[in-house]
């Protein structure tokens, strides 16, 4: 009995030890699995996880570059960047944004417009790190917030770069504006593979030079390698590559001249482009009305946007660049030159003007009832005789006209350094074939050529094209690409890159023909339709008035300015260059719905030329000195 018990105990112990042994094996096997896992993670996959840990640890923080300045030809700053404090909320760190804004409003003046902008950005910029609730804080506001900071986790003061246009509306259509980058901008940035360079940027050029020179102005984004913790807070900076400021633009534009020109328009809508004939540099580039580009920088508020976008005056339209207008009688010198060059007229050939021209049973009227009498080419330009040019156009034929005028750039983009330029229409048989679809519309009718002869009909050009063509007359046929930027100055090296120095082409014109046309245009300002506006000018000038019909008149209907709705009144035009001996400035003026070119457009040209050539500023009160042409008799 005692022995069996002992044996049982021994056997039990043996069984137990087997079990312990099995457990030990299981433990060993499990630890082997763990060890294998460690070897896999720490040896086989080590490189992968090392990279992952580095990615966790290091965050690349972009540093936005300073946007380049824009200055006029004498160095006056037109657009500049400056750093200012903004109050920003990190939406992801703030559970109840509205409550925080209300709380903030108790210490800082948060306007309704600020709230609206913030809400809009919150929707647009999904996932943004932080968004401004108030921009450009005053020193006092900064101090007040700093004292209350502890109450606002997730709200911070940041230094941001702002864009300022110190002259407000002045030259607004040239400068354009920058605005916050939106989805469409992002697509464009992606298309050019510039995402990296825009990592730290909030703004991008939207229109004007800000848009067309975006790549120059933006600069190169710098970055900091920052060690961050799991909450994304920077712990220390590992390395820093400084940003490179954007290059600055030095314009050919003369801000004072621009100012004189814009003031000269008064309340009128219209456009003016003044070009230096010897270089193609744009001296003044006006589109009225303008707008204040500063409104757009932080995102324009709905009230102002409404005002600008829905105004019947359409202040956001760049008329000089995209507005298409018939040139009216300003077209005549070019047609005369065409006739001379193509041998269809001599300067002395004259007609007897009965006051109309009958073609195909249609009576094309001259402005002057009864006609201008015996009219040669000189007189035809000086008094702006329509009958002469009806006949001249008829003799030239539409394809001769378009073939010749194409050289002057009519109906084609000038290639100016602003985006969105309109091409316009230089009518020809081929153009009409392409333009229309119905067979009866696609045919060119000879009668249509006659309207083209006085700058009406299908003619449609931008004021810029007209200015470029005028500059070509002034320079004796040397064509330049008009440009607003004189040179780009590298922000680091100071090196200047000139935008345009070589002419595009020189037109094969006979000097005596050009000379004759210029003389006739001098005659316009001396004894013709421009004489009243240019009476007593202290320099020689060449000009040509023009009036462009907005609404077609019925047969035999006479145009009476006072009877026509303002929006349907004629556009007034004027082209000019001076001094004639060696032209320094050539320009085209268009005043919308202002009636006769001689009365509305020429005085503006006079003021611009006076200022540019003589440094004289005409006080608004004594415009329009007594002229040689009577109002009733006015013609162009």
């Amino acid at each position, binding site marked *: 009995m005692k022995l069996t018990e002992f044996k049982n105990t021994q056997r039990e112990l043996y069984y137990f030890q087997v079990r312990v042994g099995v457990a030990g094996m299981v433990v060993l096997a499990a630890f082997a699995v763990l*060890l294998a896992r460690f070897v896999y993670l720490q040896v086989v996959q080590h490189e992968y996880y090392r990279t992952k*840990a580095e990615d966790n*640890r290091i965050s690349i923080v972009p540093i936005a570059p300073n946007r380049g300045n824009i200055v006029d030809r004498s160095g006056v700053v037109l657009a500049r960047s400056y750093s200012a404090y903004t109050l920003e909320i990190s939406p992801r760190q703030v559970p109840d944004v509205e409550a925080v804004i209300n709380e903030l409003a108790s210490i800082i003046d948060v306007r309704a417009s600020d709230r609206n902008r913030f809400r809009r950005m919150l929707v647009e910029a999904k996932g943004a790190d932080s968004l401004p609730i108030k921009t450009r804080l005053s020193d006092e506001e900064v101090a007040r917030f700093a004292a209350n900071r502890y109450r606002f986790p997730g709200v911070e003061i940041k230094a941001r770069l702002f864009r300022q246009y110190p002259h407000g509306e002045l030259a607004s259509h040239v400068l354009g504006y920058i605005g916050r980058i939106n989805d469409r901008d992002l697509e464009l940035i992606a298309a050019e593979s510039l995402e990296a360079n825009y990592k730290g940027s909030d703004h991008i050029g939207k229109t004007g030079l800000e848009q067309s020179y975006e790549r120059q102005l933006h600069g190169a984004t710098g970055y900091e390698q920052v060690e961050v913790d799991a*909450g994304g807070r920077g712990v220390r900076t590992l390395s820093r590559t400084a940003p490179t400021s954007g290059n600055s633009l030095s314009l050919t534009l003369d801000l004072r001249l621009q100012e004189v020109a814009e003031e000269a328009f008064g309340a009128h809508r219209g456009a003016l482009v003044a070009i230096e004939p010897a270089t193609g540099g744009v001296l003044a580039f006006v589109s009225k009305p303008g707008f204040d580009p500063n409104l757009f920088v932080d995102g324009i508020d709905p009230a102002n946007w409404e005002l600008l976008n829905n105004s019947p005056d359409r202040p956001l339209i760049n008329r000089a660049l995209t507005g298409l207008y018939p040139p009216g009688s300003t077209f005549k010198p070019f047609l005369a030159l065409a006739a001379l060059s193509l041998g269809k007229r001599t300067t002395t050939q004259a007609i007897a003007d009965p006051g109309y021209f009958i073609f195909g049973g249609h009576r094309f009227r001259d402005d002057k009832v009864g006609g201008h009498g015996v009219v040669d080419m000189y007189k035809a330009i000086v008094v702006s005789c329509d009958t002469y040019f009806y006949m001249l156009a008829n003799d030239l034929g539409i394809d001769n006209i378009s073939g010749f005028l194409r050289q002057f750039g009519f109906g084609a983009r000038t290639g100016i350094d602003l985006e969105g330029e309109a091409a316009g229409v230089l009518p020809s048989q081929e153009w009409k074939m392409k333009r229309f679809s119905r067979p009866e519309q696609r045919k060119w009718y000879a009668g249509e050529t006659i309207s083209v002869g006085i700058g009406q009909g299908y003619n449609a050009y931008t004021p810029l094209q007209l200015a470029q063509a005028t500059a070509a007359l002034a320079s004796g046929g040397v064509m330049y690409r008009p440009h607003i930027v004189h040179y780009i100055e590298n922000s680091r090296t100071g090196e200047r890159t000139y935008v345009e120095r070589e002419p595009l082409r020189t037109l094969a014109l006979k000097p005596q023909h050009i000379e004759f046309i210029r003389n006739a245009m001098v005659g316009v300002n001396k004894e013709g339709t421009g004489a009243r506006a240019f009476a007593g000018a202290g320099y020689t000038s060449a000009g040509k008035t023009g009036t462009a019909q907005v609404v077609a008149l019925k047969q035999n209907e006479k145009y009476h300015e006072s009877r026509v709705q303002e929006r349907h009144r004629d556009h007034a035009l004027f082209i000019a260059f001076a001094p004639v001996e060696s032209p320094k400035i050539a320009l085209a003026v268009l005043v919308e719905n202002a009636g006769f070119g001689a009365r509305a457009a020429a005085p503006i040209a006079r003021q611009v030329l006076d200022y540019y050539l003589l440094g004289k500023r005409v006080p608004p009160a004594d415009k329009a000195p007594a002229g040689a042409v009577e109002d009733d008799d006015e013609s162009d």
Partner: protein
Amino acid sequence: MKAIDRLFARIAAPMDGPLLSISGGLLLLGLLTLYSASTDGSARITSQLFNVGIALAVMWMAAQVPPQTLMRFALPAYLLGLALLVAVALFGDVRNGARRWLSLGFGSGQPSEIMKVAMPLMLAWYFHKNEAALGLRDYLVAAALLAIPTLLIARQPDLGTALLVAAAGFYVIFLAGLSWKLLIGAAAALAASLPFLWSLMHDYQRRRILTLFDPTEDPLGAGYHIIQSTIAVGSGGITGKGWLNGSQTHLEFIPERTTDFIFAVYSEEFGLIGNTLLLALYLALITRGLMIAANAPTFFSRLLAGAVTLTFFTYAFVNMGMVSGILPVVGVPLPLVSYGGTALVTLFLDIGILMSINRHRTLVQT
């Protein structure tokens, strides 16, 4: 002088040299890692040293208690634990979405901790009592004794503790000689009941298991812990980034880095070499424990020593497996390394029990 020597001898008498030095080594590694993982200065170290002091005292006291005395505690401890678990289920405090705490007059505690020791004690006692003729009935009773508290704990929910308690009980049953046939049958039954268990689980528990298979599914939610701890382990490489140099740790990418995920910190800073050392220490601890069990004089002490020893294995394996991404995330600390007093006391109580069993192996039972 003699008095001091005697005192020292008195203190040292119940201690087991190998167990003490192995657990001392683990404690040291734990404190080093804790120092690196704490961002709030030395406060955690001080607090952990205090925990260590209490735990060692508990161990020393437990080592004094003969196994026969321990046996007497088995039933009362188990019943008390069970009663408290029921009380928790009825009146417990909810913290972090789990009903685990019971407020007592002087404070609050997690009664499930008691079960970690009471369970193997109870089952070892039960098998010992029926040693003469163990039959299927006994195993079924044991299974029921095991299942009731486990389910109560799992329902709190506290999957980690339920797992530890269930494992401790299972080890007793296994070591008591459950037939292999039954064992395999039970395993098959468990596998078959997995879908049913799945349906009992809480959403977050299911998510944790799903996350294990594809942590990237939910990188900022449930997957975050696994992703970041795996990165920490993997980026440690063979030699580690060096003590205090773990970027995952110091930039706070590792959650719970002083407690359940302290192994990620350790592994990042000490690398594969450190991990191997840690595995070796646990293996040594377990080997020593199993040796004690194998040499224990009574059925009760063998079962208890074996189960308690294997509990260390459960802790270590589940924790390291979880941190390195091969097991789902359950709240199991790394034994003797993770910060926290409760686990430390429980574990040193276990070591104390082992020491006691070892010390009393030569004494003949009456």
